[in-house]
């Protein structure tokens, strides 16, 4: 998975969780920019990413990353390199 694919996966899951049909994310998007991306939905997003991508986040990684780009980087490190 490249960074763009990871970002679309995040957008897809976050869109499902916040009932937003066409959610567009850039690396610079933060939680404050997205309607409904609150702390509860962040937990749902993290566990949904864990199930979908078969990865696990560590306790110290879970507090919301600064922006979508940072989350993409974190996931990219965890995925087997293509």
């Amino acid at each position, binding site marked *: 998975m490249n960074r763009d694919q990871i970002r679309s996966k995040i957008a897809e899951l976050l869109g499902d969780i916040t009932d937003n049909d066409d959610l567009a994310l850039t690396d610079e998007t933060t939680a404050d920019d997205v309607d409904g991306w609150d702390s509860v939905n962040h937990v749902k997003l993290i566990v949904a990413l864990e199930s979908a991508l078969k990865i696990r*986040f560590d306790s110290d990684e879970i507090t919301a990353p600064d922006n979508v780009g940072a989350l993409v980087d974190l996931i990219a490190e965890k995925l087997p390199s293509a």
Partner: protein
Amino acid sequence: MVAPFVQLPWLPAAPADFASLCRRFGSGEGPAGAEAQRLSNFALDATQSGSLSRAIARRRKAKADFAPLSPFRLGLLSNATTDLIADCLPAAAARHGVLLDLVTTPFDQVMQQALDPSSETNNAGLDAVLVAVDHRWLQLDRSRLGGGDEQSAAALEQLRTVVTALRGNRAAPPILQTVPVPPSPLFGSYERRVRGTIRTMIEDVNRGILDLADETGCTVLDTAALAERIGTDLWFDAVQWGAYKLPFAAEAGPAHADMVGRLLGAIRGKARKCLVLDLDNTVWGGVIGDDGMEGIKIGQGSAVGEAFLAVQHAALDLRDRGIILAVSSKNDDEVARRPFREHPDMALKESHISVFQANWSDKASNLESIARSLNIGLDALVLLDDNPAERAQLRAALPMVAVPELPQDPSWYPGILFAAGYFEAVTFSAEDRIRVQSYASDAQRAEVFATSRDLGDYLGSLAMVMTATPFDVQGRQRITQLTNKTNQFNLTTRRYRESDIAAFDADPAVWTLQVRLQDRFGDLGMIALVICRTRRDGEETAWDIDTWLMSCRVLGRKVEEAMLAEVVAGARETGVARLRGTYIPTAKNGMVAEHYSRLGFSMVEEATDGTRYYELDVARYEAPDLPMTVRHGSVRTPESA
């Protein structure tokens, strides 16, 4: 291969555009029940469950009609974060015929909510409260090698306090859950032999929870069995607990919700009643029409034959606990029956099958006719069929019939059938055990009818003995079950918990009647109930008939007439001048719309919602001739009458 339990492998995979289907459903109009149920019947993950639950919530807010789902208001008390549970529950409940209204309370407020008479839990008009506390709340998360027994006792005392408080504050009846054992053995295999280890303490507490539930009339959610099934390594997620206080792994959410949904469905009388079996490649290997008696694979000696034998044993075990078996197969009748009659290795015999449909019509019409001849709804059927095309067709034609997905290998069939939880129970009574026997006797009764000249002749030849008794402790379980399971011959469809029934016994203003019936073919067990509540009308005392229900198996036998004679006799004894009957229409009880008029009551009012009110003047009633002997139970003897 079969997917693990957390992925709900008995359900078909959700379509790729599931989230947008949910959004469309959420903003739609018109009746919502059938579509909610259709969308719930996929193997949903946590995110998909959330999409459906939110869509259901939106439609509930818009006051959509959710029939045939039964509304259920459930309170949730927990010492952990419940947002993810709340996301999964309404979707899973719809799968089991329940429209869930979940009332969650703030994090870790279990005791406060239970004890404070003004708390939301005690005032929200709940149907039940799930007390979802785990080993951490019960302080069983550390071993106490010096004082394990005291610690277990304290944990049970804590739970008892919650139950007593909820009961005392007249909140809804509690649902208790068993406690899963976390995988952290201090001693390894020796763990179980040391008092005060986490495992020995929790196992003591779990036994105590069952006793507490028996004593206080609580339902039990077996969370420990669920965690065991999923595997406690997966169930207990240290990171998710530490970071978000999730009580168990998020991945287990849909399976947990399905377990809760089953339980609520069973409380609402929605558990399935009949297993319909396909034959070729479902109960034996091969095709009887092509392979013949010698060619089909069944019985000991080969892995495949043993796998199909295990399917038959599973069906027989279900039959032993009161589930009706039926057959629907595309075959010639004679050909399909031959293995049942002649094959020495068949565990299933013709006599085990209450309705046998082997023909070339489509399965949907066969299932309809099975439901009709058993007098049960299509939503009480489960179809086990190896053929994916037949399954898909049946689901499309009759979405209310449960049809589990099956893998290629028949070895998995029994496991999938049990995993799906179609036959969830909240009680198990002596009547369940004899019910199957009595369905088989029905066939013999039908034969007698065929040789009888008229109805009176037929009823007389059955040599019926009706036993009429007030409610008692022995009957309590079955009485509760009847109020929850009877949908068709049920005038008011009021559901009661065992504790409610117990309360009636103690209430001098409530008069009760339980009816058992026997005939020359066997004991039909307890088949009907009446509950009357006393009401003063000026000088006059009247009885409101709160509940009148009867099992459809004894329709057309004048049991209603005999019951009215009993009610009137009771009324006269207590100086009651008037009986008031109520008929509250539902989707299923149309057959009793004219019940009271048929018995000679006069209608006094019909409300706009179709509810009808009737009255009968006790003084004017004359008992008819009845084709049965009536006996009275021990409490009310003929002498005192």
